[in-house]
């Protein structure tokens, strides 16, 4: 049974509110617009979360189906986009539980701390100073995507939401039901892990 909404709750109106209201008022055909509005972003989210392309497509499809089912329960107390991504995140977690039962490891800080005794040879940091366009190639992008997939899921989802989907710390915390401090710690460790992979790549490239 759904509890009565708090009459003093803050209502958020954003760029999606009108569309959500129309759909919930009975104009179900407009759900198509919602799909068109978010399918690209959710597809990116899915492809970064899931190594397997068909898992990513299932994630997107299941997310939209869940949104369709539960849209009537959306209370405009958060940004719609945050609510949408919470549905996506929960769908991703359920998907993983179905396909893999092993508990995912943490990323202890010691594993991602820079262990260099001194600043390395010039070429180790050369890549850090080069313009992005000079660095980017399909091989590097492939490596980075592999590295993102190899992150334990609780770190992967934070780096995807913060650095790829560009949610703020506060919005990410809301989506994942974490504290902002927790989001920051996980993000930092995820970034250091990815940096480690890049350092290894550029060390071998020289």
């Amino acid at each position, binding site marked *: 049974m759904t509890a009565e909404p708090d009459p003093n709750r803050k209502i958020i109106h954003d760029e999606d509110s009108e569309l959500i209201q129309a759909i919930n008022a009975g104009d179900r055909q407009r759900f198509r617009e919602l799909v068109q509005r978010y399918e*690209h972003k959710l597809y990116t989210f899915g492809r970064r979360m899931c190594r397997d392309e068909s898992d990513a497509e299932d994630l997107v499809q299941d997310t939209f189906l869940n949104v369709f089912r539960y849209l009537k329960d959306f209370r405009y107390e958060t940004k719609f986009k945050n609510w949408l991504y919470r549905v996506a995140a929960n769908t991703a977690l359920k998907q993983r539980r179905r396909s893999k039962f092993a508990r995912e490891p943490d990323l202890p800080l010691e594993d991602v701390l820079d262990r260099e005794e001194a600043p390395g040879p010039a070429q180790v940091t050369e890549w850090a100073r080069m313009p992005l366009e000079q660095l980017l190639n399909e091989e590097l992008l492939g490596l980075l995507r592999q590295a993102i997939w190899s992150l334990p899921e609780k770190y992967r989802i934070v780096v995807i939401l913060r650095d790829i989907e560009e949610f703020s710390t506060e919005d990410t915390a809301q989506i994942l039901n974490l504290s902002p401090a927790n989001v920051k710690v996980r993000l930092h460790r995820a970034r250091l892990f990815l940096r480690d992979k890049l350092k290894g790549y550029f060390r071998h490239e020289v």
Partner: protein
Amino acid sequence: MRCDPHRHAHCLALFDKLSEYIDGEMDATERLEIEAHIAQCVACFSCLQSLRQTIALCKRAGRQTVPAVFSARLQTIIQKFQSAP
């Protein structure tokens, strides 16, 4: 003066806050402390640069185009779902 990298407790403490610094999520006092340290510590400056570059690369690695076939299939599935009583 060059810091003895990564054995220095101060380096390690600041290292943990580099993401917050890059994201602009730090108060002015902490930010100035980091900036003062980085100005004299080559190792920490290098860490900062490489972390910044990692973030920039990550943003680019994220981009993905929805395959037209999947987009069409998604619309069909949604249409069936919408039509269900």
